[in-house]
């Protein structure tokens, strides 16, 4: 499975990178390579030019402030797991990233690469959608911001133009005391999720849920916000009855396909179980 031939460029600035991407019809950005290189090996992609982003140091930063978390596009999973600040600043992100693939992949795979690749069963797109992240991109006509909810348009398809590079993703501020859960089930450790759920909520006085966010991974052609689940949660306390209803609502809200790994009916039921167990974890978690 040798790759087809391509030209290679390794720019040192973002502007140069954008110009290179814009210069050819079939140029592609190369970040960690953990998703793109296998596609080249299978000859599913045959770009004429690869633009390697590895020298763009400004894309490697993790910035944490009162406004939230900013992850540069070239931040690796490993960098996220090593950053202790994120344990409090974005624990949901950290929990999801711990499930990404394997040790070796996490040493090279990047945030931007995962978002641009847009695998429906990948964790990062699911977290971005659930947390209402903003994805900042740069193209030849300038910079723009795309909301995560509008960024993923189909399986392996995004709203990025051919000349656009993801610069960073911004996750909103995470208040202390927020409850969250992340549950994923895969065939084996590190495989793509058969289904996963990310949930978080805040608690009002009296222990009632507000600001609930729930997202599903792996059960559609893109990550989904489960508004039906959120509507059930908001205004209620989290008890067994609420969780059972949330489970049912999640199942009813999705319409997954079957494939060689799992039937449609199984996936549908599984997402409900993932939501229920994520809520259970959220409820019983010790808040840092």
């Amino acid at each position, binding site marked *: 499975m*040798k790759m087809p031939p391509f030209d290679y460029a390794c720019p040192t600035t973002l502007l140069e990178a954008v110009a290179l991407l814009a210069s050819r019809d079939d140029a592609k950005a190369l970040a960690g390579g953990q998703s793109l290189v296998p596609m080249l090996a299978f000859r599913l992609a045959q770009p004429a030019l690869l633009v390697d982003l590895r020298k763009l140091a400004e894309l490697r930063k993790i910035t944490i402030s009162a406004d939230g978390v900013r992850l540069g596009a070239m931040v690796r999973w490993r960098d996220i797991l090593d950053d202790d600040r994120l344990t409090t600043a974005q624990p949901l992100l950290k929990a999801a990233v711990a499930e990404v693939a394997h040790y070796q992949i996490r040493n090279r795979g990047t945030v931007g690469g995962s978002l641009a690749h847009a695998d429906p069963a990948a964790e990062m797109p699911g977290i971005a959608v659930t947390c209402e992240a903003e994805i900042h991109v740069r193209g030849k006509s300038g910079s723009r911001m795309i909301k995560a909810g509008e960024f993923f348009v189909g399986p392996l398809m995004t709203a990025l133009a051919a000349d656009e590079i993801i610069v960073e993703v911004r996750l909103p501020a995470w208040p202390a005391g927020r409850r969250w859960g992340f549950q994923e089930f895969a065939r084996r450790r590190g495989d793509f999720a*058969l289904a996963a759920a990310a949930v978080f909520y805040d608690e009002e006085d009296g222990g009632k849920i507000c600001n609930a966010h729930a997202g599903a991974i792996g059960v559609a052609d893109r990550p989904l916000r489960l508004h039906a689940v959120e509507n059930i949660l908001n205004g209620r306390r989290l008890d067994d009855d609420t969780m059972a209803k949330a489970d049912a609502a999640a199942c009813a809200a999705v319409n997954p396909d079957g494939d060689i790994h799992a039937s449609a009916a199984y996936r549908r039921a599984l997402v409900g179980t993932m939501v229920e167990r994520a809520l259970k974890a959220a409820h019983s978690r010790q808040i840092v």
Partner: protein
Amino acid sequence: MRTVNSLIGSPIERREDLRFLRGRGEYVDDLLREGLLYAAVLRSSVAHGRIRSLDVSAARALAGVHTVVTAAEVRSGSPENRIPRVPMRLQPLPEFEPVGQPVIAETKVRYVGEALAVVLASSAAIAEDALGLIEVDIEPLPAVAGRRASAKGEAFLFEERASNLAMKFHAVRGDTAIAFKDAPYVRRERFRTQRHMALPMEPRGLLARWDAAEGKLTVCGGAKVLFFNRRTLARHLGLPESAIELIENDVGGGFGARGEFYPEDFLIPFAARHAGRPVKWTEDRREHLMTVNHAREAECEVEIACTRDGAILGLRGHAHVDVGAYMRTNGAVGARNIAQFMSGPYRIENIDIDVSLWLTNKTPVGTYRGPGRFETDFFRERLLDMVARDLAIDRVELRRRNLVPQRDMPYPIATITPFESKDELDSGNYQVTLDRCLREIKWQEKARLSGKAIGGRYHGLAVGCFIEGGAAGPKETARIVLEPDGSFSVYVGSSAIGQGLETAFAQIAADALEVPLDRIRGVLHGSTAYVSDGYGAYHSRSVVMGGSAILAAADNLRAVIRAQAAERLGCAPGEVGIVEGEKAVAPNGRSVALGALSGAGISAEGAFLNKKHTYTYGAHAAHVAVDPKLGHVDLIDYVVVEDCGRIINPLTVHGQAIGSVVQGLGGAVMEHLQYDEDGQLLTGSLADYLIPTASDFPSIRAVVLEEHPSPINPLGAKGAGEGGIIAAGGVMANAIADALRDLAVEPRELPLTPSRIWELVQAGRSNAQSGQG
């Protein structure tokens, strides 16, 4: 029986480890030659079709491409102006002749992956580029997608045959008609096992070099059965065997699949001779999944008859095996074994099982560790647990009542026709391994957990018994050389595929020669240059056959040493004593160092002939916890106990047992080669074909015993290496069934993936609700 010295039976650390750990192993893709060309194979993307045209002109014109070989070149370059076929090595029945695989497709393609052309280029990348430039026009034909379509006969793979049935075997013992008539209890069931495969970590590879001046062909990358492969290649290339040398390098696993004669084993040497340049071919993983022998796709409908006490009166039924598009070298073995070994270690006096081999538009099948035995063990052990429940007999007790007792051995099992094969269970006490297994898993203590839900997970236990056939004959050869420095080199026809032969055979040789282990300079294996007539590694035969051949060679060498020493020392050969493997001593006290006897070294060959199989036997037990919502099976504990007659190296035989079990567990719950209705292989990468990883089965224990040596070879050894896989499917399925028994779950099909287990739970629930059972 020989007396044991400290070497046989010792957990000697392996010699081969030294180079593997340093990254200095030499696998075929590590080799380089001057002037090397790299080969890539164009493969059909259509499962069934007529080849209208093949245009390689654009490929030939690509810079860096040296040659393109098509069926036309193969035909005109062959001694009989025809496309050679892959021969049947085992069970070469005349019925299989017309459905043998041509080494390259000429008029038809019959499976996705079938070879259409071979490109030779200055790099593997360019060769692969060239594949994309070959224009192939195939008129698609309806794909025979599975065994039912095959039987329906709406489309034929071989039109002139007007049937897709390759063969039918029949296993018979006693009289089932009588046994079933008036039987107090009968249960009939259908079961199914899925297509999966051996998947060694090293993909295949070959490096062929034709020396035109010498008229010699050298091919590296061989494994398993190099002598048979050399004979085959010689015949197809019109060369004498002596002109061909097949070399076994380091081999990254075999498990039955690597080393058989595949189309590439002809195409690559042919291409090397045709191009006049050395050629290297390395398969990639996508190719591997669609070209290396598949295995295990079988279903059966069986009936068992018993007394009310659970004594088995008879077993009868029909099995069907999906053998893929062609009969390759050993494609019939699995099917035949399903019929012959369905009785396993149990005393079943009346048996009538037929097994049909159906051709389909899929990759051809071959043997994979414990061929047919994994499948048939699953069928039988599931049936036994069902019977136990019906008759309200304890599952362990049911097995005890039916295991072949020691006093009945040798115990004849069902006779298979055609290719008549009569087999007997040779020796052993099957109750002992069962007892030990139950003790190890703490069956008594854990029995109360059966079917219990704890923390949302249902616990289940199961035990199963198995036999593993080994020591396939007819022969193996070894040669030992006493080197001038007094060390010994051992050459053997057996093949190494990771099972630690170099160490085990050194132990056997050192023991036989009565020398310290470090006097064995090396064990050289597999390659055709090493012995006059070798057979190889399959059917768990290496220790029995190769080891026994080494004993024979050692005896012969000692005789030659005595004869030569006698001349030197002026006495009769029978008077010569060999002391500590270092010197030969005459009665008058004169002595000579062994190494000094001949400047060129002294060599002797030995052979071991064998017609009977040995039977390693044992039991497996599993403790699982099943999450019914996820369908996930957590394997809490797994134990395998086996008696292999004589243990040469406890480290390696234990390692084989564990590795074998994990492969079996993969087959039980996750591995599956899946095709669609058009014969397209859907599992085309390791992201889709899933094998166990380090985190899947953390608790597996193996106990290897040697309480009942085999009576049929001087080592007393039986085979080892396949027992771990054989019982895993049945035991896992029974443990899952035990766990979910209150949910009316009865698994009848493998693999038991999370999705399938969940579906079974749903079906059980709705059956219960509607009042069905």
